[in-house]
């Protein structure tokens, strides 16, 4: 495995330019920007870069709320990008307005997740599938009617369904109708937003097969958004793993599934139930929940839950449970820093009454209660809790980072300056990229550390 740091924007541009259809560069989509009430936007997609080659299926996986649907919607301009560019055959579609956008929309369509909500119940199937053609003034009305009937045939429904209503169909059939509508304008690129997650398992397979057939027949390029990893493994040529608005790892499907490089990919894949009871590696349990995308952690987005966080050399030997406690403490202090205390809380505190904020000492007891904390660690921790108890959360956090922080928390080698973020490292000959400090030469690889720590 080569460990050469490769910058995404330069390395692959020359080689893939010929057959690249969609080129995404440093794309950011934020919600609630410039609102009256808050100046902290929700960073749903926070700077992603990748390419989609003509005719391939790129899978996009990640847990709920990681921003994969937002990314898909931004690619077909249903959401406005905050920053960055999406080059579609060389044209930056985030800059398109008015007529150009209208013309471009023919090329990129979307299949929606919920077949109940994606079809207008008051229109007949014929009207629904015809509408894109009407909008783009495609040939004559008679031609449109014929086209709709042939599309119905194409997706495995019959032309008599033209005058039926959506509610007369099952979920799988409705999804077929949605697919027919998507195909009406002969798009080249289709975003499939969890197209089968709302369907029965038996129907899922039919829809997946239909999508594959259509891809062969019409030379379609898919972005397949899903959280069902086995489906992704079946249909996708390449997979991108997303976490908290960032792509953690992207590469060929089989390789990524058999030999994951990024710690998050490890964790995600370990969640797939294995039919083999003698499987060797244990499941990796992630602590806590994903951070709030309004307040993402500094440094690596996965640093708050990473099982293979890089630790300062002097504390490398520290017990894992103590590390869990230290991470927990950091999260709680970050949380306390954000929470505004109401006047009522302040008054209650003044009079020594119980407040919503548990005292930091209780938290400390809960985290480190039964553990044998070494003296030097305990000394630092008590300084930290004292500062936090006096509502000096910033100071407490600085102290904690200075002692236990690493490059994963954005702490650079010299200890100050701008937060350091990981880079994309090329982790295999196929050009697979992973977003993790572990791939740098000075650190040990993920798999080895996982074995050690488990």
């Amino acid at each position, binding site marked *: 495995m080569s460990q050469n740091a490769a910058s995404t924007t330069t390395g692959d541009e020359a080689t893939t330019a010929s057959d690249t259809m969609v080129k995404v560069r440093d794309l950011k989509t934020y919600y609630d920007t410039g609102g009256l009430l808050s100046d902290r936007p929700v960073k749903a997609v926070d700077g992603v870069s990748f390419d989609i080659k003509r005719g391939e299926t790129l899978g996009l996986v990640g847990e709920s709320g990681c921003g994969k649907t937002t990314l898909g*919607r931004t690619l*077909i301009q*249903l959401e406005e990008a905050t920053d960055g560019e999406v080059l579609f055959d060389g044209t930056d579609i985030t800059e398109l307005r*008015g*007529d150009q*956008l*209208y013309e471009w*929309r*023919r090329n990129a*369509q*979307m299949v*929606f*997740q*919920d077949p109940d*909500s*994606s*079809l*207008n*119940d*008051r*229109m*007949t199937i014929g009207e629904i599938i015809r*509408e*894109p053609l009407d*909008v*783009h003034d495609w040939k*004559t*009305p*008679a031609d449109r*009617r*014929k*086209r709709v*009937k*042939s599309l119905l*045939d*194409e997706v495995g429904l019959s*032309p008599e369904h033209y*005058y039926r*209503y959506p*509610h007369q169909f099952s979920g799988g059939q409705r999804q077929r109708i*949605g697919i027919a*509508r998507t195909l*009406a*304008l*002969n798009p080249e690129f289709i975003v499939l937003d969890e197209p089968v997650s709302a369907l029965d398992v038996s129907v899922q397979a039919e829809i997946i097969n239909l999508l594959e057939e259509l891809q062969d*027949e*019409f030379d379609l390029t898919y972005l397949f958004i899903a959280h069902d990893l086995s489906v992704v493994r079946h249909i996708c040529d390449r997979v991108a793993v997303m976490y908290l608005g960032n792509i953690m790892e992207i590469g060929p499907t089989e390789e990524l599934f058999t030999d994951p490089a990024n710690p998050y990919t490890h964790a995600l894949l370990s969640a797939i139930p294995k039919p083999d009871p003698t499987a060797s590696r244990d499941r990796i349990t992630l602590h806590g929940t994903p951070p709030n995308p309004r307040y993402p952690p500094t440094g690596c987005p996965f640093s708050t839950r990473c099982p293979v966080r890089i630790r300062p050399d002097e504390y490398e030997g520290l017990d894992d449970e103590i590390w869990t406690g230290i991470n927990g403490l950091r999260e709680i202090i970050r949380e306390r820093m954000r929470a505004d205390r109401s006047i009522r809380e302040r008054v209650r505190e003044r009079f020594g009454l119980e407040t919503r904020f548990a005292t930091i000492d209780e938290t400390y007891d809960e985290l480190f209660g039964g553990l044998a904390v070494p003296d030097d660690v305990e000394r630092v921790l008590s300084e930290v809790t004292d500062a936090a108890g006096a509502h000096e959360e910033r100071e407490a956090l600085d102290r904690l980072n200075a002692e236990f922080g690493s490059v994963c928390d954005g702490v650079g080698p010299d200890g100050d300056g701008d937060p350091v973020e990981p880079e994309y490292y090329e982790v295999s000959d196929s050009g697979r990229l992973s977003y993790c400090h572990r791939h740098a030469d000075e650190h040990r690889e993920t798999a080895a550390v996982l074995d050690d720590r488990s």
Partner: protein
Amino acid sequence: MSTRQRDSTDGLEEPDDDKLLRDRVRENPRPAMVWLAGLAFLLLLEIGRVFAGVGQAFGIVGFTVELLAGIPTSVGDNVAGTLGSAAGFVATAITAVLMAFAVTVPVSASVPDAAVDILGLDLSRRGHRWAKRAELTFVVVAAAGLVAYTPVGGAFSALIGAITGGVDALASSLPSITSRELIPNAGHRLPEGGWEGTFLGLSPAAAWAIRTGLVFAYATTVLVWLWRGFDVYRTHYRLADWTPRDDTVRRFRNNYWGLFGFAIVFLFVVMALWAPAVSPVEAQHNIYEPNSHEFQYLDENGEVTSTTHVFANLDSRSDGQNTIGPMSYDDYNRWAPLGTTNRGQDMMTHLSYGARTSLVIGITAIGLGALIAVVLSLLSSYYKGITDIVTVMASDTIQAVPALLLIMLVSVVFQEANHPIAQPLDGGLLLALIFAFAYWPGMWRSIRGPSLQVSEQEWVDAAKSYGQTPLQTMRKHMAPYIAGYILIYGSLLIGGVIISTAALTFLGLGINPPTPEWGRLIDGGQSYVSTSSWHVATIPGIAIVLVVVAFNALGDAIRDAIDPEADVDESEAAATGGGA
């Protein structure tokens, strides 16, 4: 496209799939001809009334156009008063252009693109749309300018006058089968018995019953014939053998509560439309100008004498002491099928013309209010953000003022100023406009939730993803979901408007005499409810209750009928019912 697709299209080829309705009628003209002949015959029977209706429609259009045409100059005059005449002229021009533009926006979609192509410009799709609107605006403004500022205007109004005059002349000269001239019921007894001046010498009661029966028979025939027209179209000329409209109709036909509502509303509307025919005496004689119209009757001395309606009405009052009850004659040989009012006027005449008043006010107020509410709710739920906030503030401001108080204040202000809007129907139109203004926030609030909900549906996103215009998205993908809500709410409110109008008139504020209004009847009869003149307040009271309930039932039934999902429940219920 692939060959496979072409193959499948060939298999589906339907030979007459894209023929126009005109061609299809030409191929098989018989059913259409029969139906059209029937319709023509029906219209011919009432040709006099048809022209009278056309004349009335002209009057309404003329009044509206005049009112709107007055807006630019009145705005200009107001500005001129403060800023000088030049500014006034500019203000007039700007207002006129803005109004013309507002007219073109909804119309421009139906104007052919060729209108813009003759300009020879290379325009984008959006540019094309705006160019078309600008062009239409120019045409409208130019036409209006010609009429307003050049001699063409004189010729134009002369032409309009000639047309309306012609229509009115035709209306009074052409016959109709329900006319008072053909079946007269006003006459007097003869000293030797029998009647003079009535239809075939029958009693006025019988003549009136025949005429009224004929009205309802005729209206029902027209309704049935229209239904048959739909049937003819469906069996002979429609391409699809089934469309959703069929289900809508079927669902409505099976809804008995809705049919009851429809029947009452139908009666109410027919009574309003044929008010001159169903009233036993002419409203002009009995209500509006009782001084100037004489009639003959057989007095107690056995002589045929002549008197005016004023004196006759004075003696025919139903005021507790003296009662002309339902189904009776007064002392002047006048037939009063529903008795007389406390002022001696004929109740049936009053009720039928009052139905006209109520119908006009209700439909104008709810139509206008619902239009405002729907447009604003679509805009605010599609664009959200600032549009939504502005609408919320506007509606909250209006709703912060108690509705009845607002209505009273505004109506008094306009009536005191003797504003031209306060003239039609003795304040009825003014009341309708005020109701529309006061009630749209309520309607908007009630459909705001549903419209926000539907704007979040994925099919709205889907429409956006293939480039559907916002206007079309709102019309096709959002408005149908709101239609059900606005129908039911509008039909509830139309009852409310009828009641409020009656209530205001009851208080002496709404519609001034002589325009007949049900509320005034109730007001007049309220103190006699426990006397022998109980009918004065009771009959219009019952009529109001029936009409309001019927409108609600009808609204309910229409909502159920246009909702395709209502069917599922129904059939499920039927299935379980059958199984049990």
